[in-house]
């Protein structure tokens, strides 16, 4: 695929054009200092120097709470879907998060598509910003999702000394580059070399967290992990659900109806497979009544070969958000370590 160079003094111009073309979601620093992927209204709002965002991109494609149907129960029952569609450009988002979207694509696409997810996904463009330095919690190298990617993005931007190296990864990304050729020049070999140098250096900045995904995958796939591992992990988990909500690829949801006037809406909400009642049946029977069973099911779904084959890859991108968000010590890094040690 093609690569271009965008001089530093033209970055804002290009961002301005994107803002006129679509809603732009970019890293934005809020008043507390935390960074969120959030709609921006001017190039100056983009926090180019951020390390990681509090949340992944999931919320934009699968909201924590969304209305899927509207119904009226008057004389005659009427039901209609509530679908939201708009063009969105996700700018300067991290490669782990773009990889997370690719995993969600496999889950929500396929033979039966989820129309709500796909309507948003089809109109989204992902421009990633490669990481030059890992954050404390990061282990994307273990998750095969960064800090630099070979593919999976529409465009991947790398901040070079004099401007952005823009790599195109899809037709959508190429079309975007074509539309703004006046600002771009073809990348020079020394610019590509500079990127490779930055990529190498970035890999040396990872901290204490890692994830033994290969070992965990093998043991989970063959159901070799003894029960004691899950029981011990259960003592290190308070079932807050934070790891699932912060995970770029966790996508469980539940559905509830809500009455409003002489009708109502059907909504879906994020759910967490770690919750006690997640699999509880109307009869009261709970096939995963034990906390340890729920942990086993979660990590099997995330890392086993069986599910990796269905989704095209395993479901950990190494963003480390579960490390930050864990109320105890049962995040991906701790869990794979426990599984590896047996």
């Amino acid at each position, binding site marked *: 695929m093609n690569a271009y160079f965008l001089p530093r003094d033209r970055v804002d111009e290009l961002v301005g054009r994107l803002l006129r073309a679509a809603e732009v979601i970019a890293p934005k620093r809020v008043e507390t200092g935390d960074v969120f992927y959030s709609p921006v209204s001017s190039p100056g709002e983009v926090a180019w120097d951020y390390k990681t965002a509090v949340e992944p991109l999931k919320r934009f494609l699968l909201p924590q709470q969304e209305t899927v149907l509207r119904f009226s129960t008057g004389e005659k029952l009427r039901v209609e879907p509530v679908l939201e569609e708009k063009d969105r450009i996700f700018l300067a988002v991290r490669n782990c998060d773009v990889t997370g979207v690719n995993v969600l694509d496999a889950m929500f696409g396929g033979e*039966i598509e989820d129309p709500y997810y796909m309507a948003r996904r089809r109109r989204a463009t992902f421009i990633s910003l490669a990481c030059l330095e890992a954050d404390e919690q990061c282990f994307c190298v273990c998750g095969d999702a960064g800090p630099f990617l070979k593919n999976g993005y529409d465009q991947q931007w790398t901040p070079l000394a004099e401007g952005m190296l823009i790599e195109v990864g899809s037709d959508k990304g190429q079309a975007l580059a074509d539309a703004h050729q006046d600002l771009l020049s073809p990348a020079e070999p020394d610019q590509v070399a500079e990127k490779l140098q930055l990529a190498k250096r970035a890999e040396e900045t990872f901290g204490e967290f890692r994830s033994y995904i290969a070992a965990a995958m093998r043991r989970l796939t063959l159901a070799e992990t003894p029960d004691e591992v899950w029981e011990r992990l259960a003592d290190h988990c308070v079932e807050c659900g934070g790891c699932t909500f912060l995970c770029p690829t966790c996508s*469980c949801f539940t*559905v509830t*109806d809500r009455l409003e006037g002489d009708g109502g809406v059907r909504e879906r909400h994020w759910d967490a497979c770690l919750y006690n009642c997640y699999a509880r049946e*109307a009869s009261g029977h709970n096939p995963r009544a034990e906390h340890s*069973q729920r942990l086993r099911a979660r990590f*099997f*779904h995330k890392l086993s070969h*069986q*599910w990796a084959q269905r989704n095209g890859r395993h479901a950990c991108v190494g963003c480390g958000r579960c490390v930050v968000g864990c109320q105890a010590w049962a995040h991906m890094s701790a869990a794979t370590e426990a599984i590896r040690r047996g």
Partner: protein
Amino acid sequence: MSNPYLPDIATIQRVKPETYDTTSFTLKFDDPGVWERFRFRPGQFVEISVFGAGEAPFCISSSAHGREDFDITVRRLGRVTQALHAMGEGAQVGVRGPLGNSFPLDEVAGKHVLFVGGGLGLAPLRPQILEVYRQRDKFQSITVLYGARTPDDLIYRDELEQWQNLEGMRCLLTVDVGGDGWTGNVGVVGSLLSEVKFDVGQAVVFVCGPPIMIRFVVRDLVAMGFGEDDIISTLERHMRCGIGKCNHCIHGDKYICLDGPVFTYRQMKAMMELEP
């Protein structure tokens, strides 16, 4: 691209109480065009919406042939089933489906066919029983063994009486606990397996019922010599979307909604190994 979450509207045609807590509902789509596309196979299920109360999955319990409506048989348990039980003829519900895989039919032609049902487990078997019976000349024999906790828990009682007198089908009943006026067998449904005289090497068995009953019956069937691929059952789990998106019904490496609800004993064993 149609929206798989958007239910079609159907109207309750008939409400037939089966037991003190279980009722069959006959549903017909308001738009006759839907039926053309619907055409379910035995073993499949539907998601039924009672708007305001929510949505829940139910197996289709009526014949897949010769009708333009279908039945579900519902035990009063949770929010949705309670709301359904409060509805009468003419009330409207939402229907999504048919969902899931189905029982094999052509694949098992030429065999002795055994059905073992417990309690409400007769409901998912019923379409298959009716279909196998309709095509009975393709099979060596048809046997239905059905048990419930008490005589009052037997569903489809009028039909059971017919089945017991049908030529080309053997139908035996039992209850765990007898009562006044019950002159039939007393004992768990597994006790009827001793009545099976055919060559199990030439047979296939469909088993549905409560998990505990399935566990014991399957153990007996294996002991009798049934092959692991010739024992076929349906599994249930808490379910939301019915199309492999919400993840609630995952068991091991399978979605019950998408890969099931029909599984062979060999598949079920593998799932249990991954997620006991």
